[in-house]
């Protein structure tokens, strides 16, 4: 099985699709959509195969491919997945076809749009499977470029500003990330994530950083502080992507301006790149540095959860409500990660809590990656019917004319607010189960986010679905067959994960256990 380069094939399938779409022959719109969808479904099948053949009990990386790439730089082509990676690969493979389906109304320059979307998918798949920095960073940046053009060319009325803001924000993050890893390379002599993590664990990395970097290169800093600076650089790169307050201001505007399909990719997948970075790089490589600034980080996570929930409540635009809600949900992931970094007492005592929190974080990543895009997709449906209107006050009483739409979107909303039986609950429960004993105050403050999420989502239901029917929308059509094909499988999946979270947890539990073992301080 290991002989067949499944991951490489998986990553390059969408890339091949993207290239094909740019050929003049595939130019007409209907065929472009079909081609793109076919390639994304092929990717999904490959990802399914990967998931199927993945051995949940194995502690090591699987499907590893390792080749020299630029020997002089120690740059390698190094891919492989563990429980975390495969979870993200599966999510990417699932959300992309949905995003393509949700983009069926893209009329202008269709082939280019679909091609860029597949390009973006390839970048994401590469990011989630690459295990060596240069190779990984290439994909990381590769995903940024199509996203920029997708927003810039197909977005809403203020798309240009939003795209620029998005690009510059993430670019700043990327550059600081790049600098940080160059510094790591200069000292440790490797780009390999696994090796870096091993060195970070043993404390060797911090020693190397403070001894090897030329003295006086940053005169105001003591040598001991250098690792912290480098950690901060890497942190910035991921914090922008997730985002962590206060690095989030690009998000509401970007999500609101991007076309529906792209917003789905942004919220479902690109935000996960940030969380993935925290789990794959920051937590294993910089455990000591993270602990040094843990209290401020925890405060930021709590602020992310609480402030964004409140901000969502103040929004009047449905897409912005969901955008802030998205920040809020990823805040729980960050809270879990930071709490796990905390060293308290002996290891044995806290292993259960850390395992619970990390399992919760991974589950939450997947659940948010499923629920949030579907919610944006519903808003997209609404926009398509209302001619671009998506204000909270523009509707009312839609349940009367579009009961199926309201019912299914209602289910997705309740999944988002963590109703048991749907997917959101177990992840949040596990995060709180782990965080509460580790950092009680943070858990106690963060439940406010759970409450406010219910407040603003129910307000949306009250204002949009309930009440007397707004006479403007008496002719509003309910979901079409095509739209049902998009949302029903996702709804079924939400229910399935909610009732049987073992479907996912079974695949990453071992990885989480290994991560917790490696976190020994």
């Amino acid at each position, binding site marked *: 099985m290991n002989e067949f380069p499944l991951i490489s094939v998986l990553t390059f399938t969408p890339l091949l699709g993207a290239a094909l779409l740019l050929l003049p022959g595939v130019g007409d719109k209907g065929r472009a959509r079909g081609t793109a969808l076919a390639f994304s479904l092929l990717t999904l099948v490959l990802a399914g195969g990967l998931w199927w053949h993945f051995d949940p009990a194995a502690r090591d990386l699987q499907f590893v491919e390792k080749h020299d790439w630029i020997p002089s730089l120690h740059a390698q082509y190094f891919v492989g997945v563990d429980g975390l990676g495969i979870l993200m690969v599966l999510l990417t493979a699932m959300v992309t076809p949905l995003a393509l389906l949700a983009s069926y109304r893209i009329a202008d320059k269709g082939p280019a749009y679909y091609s860029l979307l597949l390009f973006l998918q390839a970048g994401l798949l590469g990011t989630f499977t690459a295990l060596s920095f240069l190779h990984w960073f290439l994909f990381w940046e590769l995903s940024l470029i199509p996203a920029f053009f997708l927003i810039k060319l197909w977005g809403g009325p203020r798309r240009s500003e939003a795209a620029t803001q998005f690009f510059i*924000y993430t670019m700043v993050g990327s550059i600081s990330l790049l600098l940080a890893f160059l510094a790591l390379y200069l000292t440790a002599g490797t780009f390999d994530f696994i090796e870096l993590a091993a060195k970070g664990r043993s404390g060797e990395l911090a020693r190397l950083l403070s001894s090897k970097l030329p003295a006086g290169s940053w005169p105001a800093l003591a040598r001991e502080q250098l690792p912290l600076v480098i950690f901060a650089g890497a942190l910035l790169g991921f914090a922008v992507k997730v985002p962590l307050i206060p690095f989030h201001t690009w998000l509401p505007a970007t999500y609101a301006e991007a076309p529906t399909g792209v917003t789905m990719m942004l919220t479902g997948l690109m935000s996960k790149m940030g969380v993935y970075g925290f789990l794959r790089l920051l937590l294993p490589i910089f455990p000591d540095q993270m602990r040094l600034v843990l209290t401020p980080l925890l405060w930021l996570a709590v602020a992310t959860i609480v402030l964004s929930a409140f901000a969502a409540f103040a929004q009047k635009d449905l897409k912005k409500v969901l955008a802030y809600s998205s920040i809020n949900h990823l805040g729980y992931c960050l809270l879990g990660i930071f709490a796990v970094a905390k060293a308290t007492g002996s290891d044995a005592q806290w292993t259960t809590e850390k395992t619970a929190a990390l399992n919760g974080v991974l589950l939450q990543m997947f659940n948010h990656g499923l629920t949030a895009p579907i919610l944006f997709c519903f808003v997209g449906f609404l926009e398509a019917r209302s001619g671009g209107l998506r204000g909270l006050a523009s509707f009312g009483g839609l349940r009367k004319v579009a009961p199926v739409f309201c019912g299914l979107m209602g289910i997705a909303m309740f999944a988002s607010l963590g109703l048991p039986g749907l997917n959101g609950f177990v992840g949040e429960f596990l995060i709180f189960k782990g965080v509460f004993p580790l950092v009680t105050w943070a858990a106690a403050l963060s439940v406010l986010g759970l409450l406010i999420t219910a407040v603003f989502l129910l307000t949306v239901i009250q204002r949009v*679905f309930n009440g007397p029917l707004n006479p403007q929308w008496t002719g509003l059509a309910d979901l079409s067959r095509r739209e049902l094909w998009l949302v029903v499988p996702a709804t079924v999946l939400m229910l399935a994960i909610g009732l049987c979270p073992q479907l996912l947890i079974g695949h990453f539990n071992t990885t989480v256990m290994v991560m917790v073992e490696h976190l020994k301080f």
Partner: protein
Amino acid sequence: MSWISGHLYLIPLLPLLAAGIIAVNRQPRRQLASRLAIGAMLGSFLLSAGAFCGTLGRASGGGAVPEVHNFDWFQMGGSWVRLGWLLDPLTAAMLVMVTFVGLLIFIYSVGYMAHDANFTRFFCFLSLFAAAMLGLLIANNLLLLFMCWELVGLASYLLIGFWYHKPSAAAAAKKAFITTRVGDVVFFLGIVWLYSQAGTLLFYDAGQGCLEHSVLDSMAARTTFGGIAVTAGIGLLIFCGAIGKSGQVPLHVWLPDAMEGPTPVSALIHAATMVAAGVFLVARMYPLMAAHGVGAFDAPLAAGFSALTVVAWVGAITAVFAACIAVAQTDIKRILAYSTVSQLGFMMLGLAVGGVAVGMFHLITHAFFKALLFLGAGSVIHGCHEEQDIRHMGGLRRFMPVTFATYAIGMLALSGFPLVFSGFWSKDAILHAAHHWEVSRLPFYLGVVGAFLTAFYMTRQVCQVFYGHYRGGQAAAPGHAGKGKSAHHAHAHAHEPHESPRVMTVPLAILAVFAILLGFIGTPAWPWFQSYLTGTAAEFNFAELRNPEILSTLLLSTALVFFGIGLGWLLYGRQPASDAQAVDPLERWQPDVFALLRNKFYVDELYEMTVIQLNAWFARACDNLDYFGWNGLVVAVSYLTIGLAWLDRVCDEFVVNLGFDGICRGVSQGGKILARLQTGRVQSYLRVLGVALAALVLFLLWGCGAS
């Protein structure tokens, strides 16, 4: 292990399947939906009865050891998170009550909702509601219980907002969900705390469950904030969930608003399902609630603080607080709603001061007579063409004899009319236990006042609705008419009230029978129910009734009831109000107090001004912080960048490019300027010299300072 205890999951599964089938059915088929829902409920009832009989056999054998079945749910590290169900007398009794009352309400709904356009959806939600509640009852894991607990909240949200096109219904549904969620998030914290302390959320697990001695003892030995035992802290957090769900002060505000739902829903929420969940939670967690710092946990009244102390106080205060409000209400359902809040307070008080049996006995009897009263009220509303204001009723006993007779029985049971009505015995047990509570006597006095008020406001209501002459028909206030149902239906009939169809009155009659009979299973002379719950055999002992302690409370509650009913009759029955605009006798007597009560102590307004305003203000503040604060910072940085770029361009274009030209021009210009300096005037030379000197001194000073 009997077959039924191994297949207990079927009881919630049947209604759940019914709900699912109705939901996915594209063509709404009314007959199918109602038959499916009722059939599933009937199946659950039969299974529950089987389970009940199973526990019956064991009870006489002694001991109430729950039969548990646990199963793996998902992996967490090296172990599995397990869920499970359990069967013990508490669960069995509740199962029978919920399925039986639920079944009657379902049947009644067929008549009540007959003309509603969304008939099938109604039965779908009702079944979901029942399924969630039944799941909650059989859960052997606090997490599973919480999951069902939230689903109960969802179902109530859907049903309260069933007539979603009414803004008031939509608002009430949201209010119910959010208010209970306030309690729920605290409950949630209690759960994760318990999980970390006990290491499991299973209630019973062969000695390792979180409600079993070994775990409880080790938790009780630890202390937390303020020196209270960990168990007490966890118990308090969990109780917050019960406060929200069971409408205790200060989270009671949602319950009266929940009247916006169709009347069968009100009956279901107020009798069998939602509010009972909170009381049941306290009963289920009783070992934890009662555990306190030092000493054995099966002596809850010994010195030391346990969560039950708080439960008692909250219950007692709620009992009186809501009863006061009920006195001044005019909506037939709202009076009953506040009555429910008050009675739930009694149950909490009973649980806290007298133990599981006392509280649960009142829960069960109350479920029957409150369901009876709500369904009776529904029948009245139905008969009066959707009129809900008791001032526009009157004299209905002539028009609706069956409804009147059954309603009177429900009212007497709720008031606690002596000897033959169930409410008398269950309420008396609470007062008796409160009388012996060691912490304080005040809850007892509060309970006494509450009992008196209950008799009073129920008499007021019955007098206004059923006695005197009919005051409706003449131009009912427009705001009260047409509650959700099609208006033409109401107009199709004459304006005379009419008796409801058999499908509605038969459930009333059945409930009325139980409202009487149930009292006899828990009298002091034959405390069968109490013994059943504790797993001991009950014995007849009529001498108990002559025990002076018991007799004194019996006589006291009798006196209270007669006093309350007598006063009510005096004020409202003897001289019935002549027309709908007549001033209430109490209002004439004490207008200010009456206004305060009618406006529910202004609690809603208080919350509106504080919590909700604060919430909205904070949301705006967060939004502004985002927009002006963080975003402002980003914009500032971007302008700074633009500024720097501009400066750079200026440098490039004007300094570098124009530099050469400038220098050339400068040389020739400079020559001219220098030539002008050579004026030959001494004053100007001296002036330049002075300025130069000053500049030099300043420069030197600066240089010294720098080095």
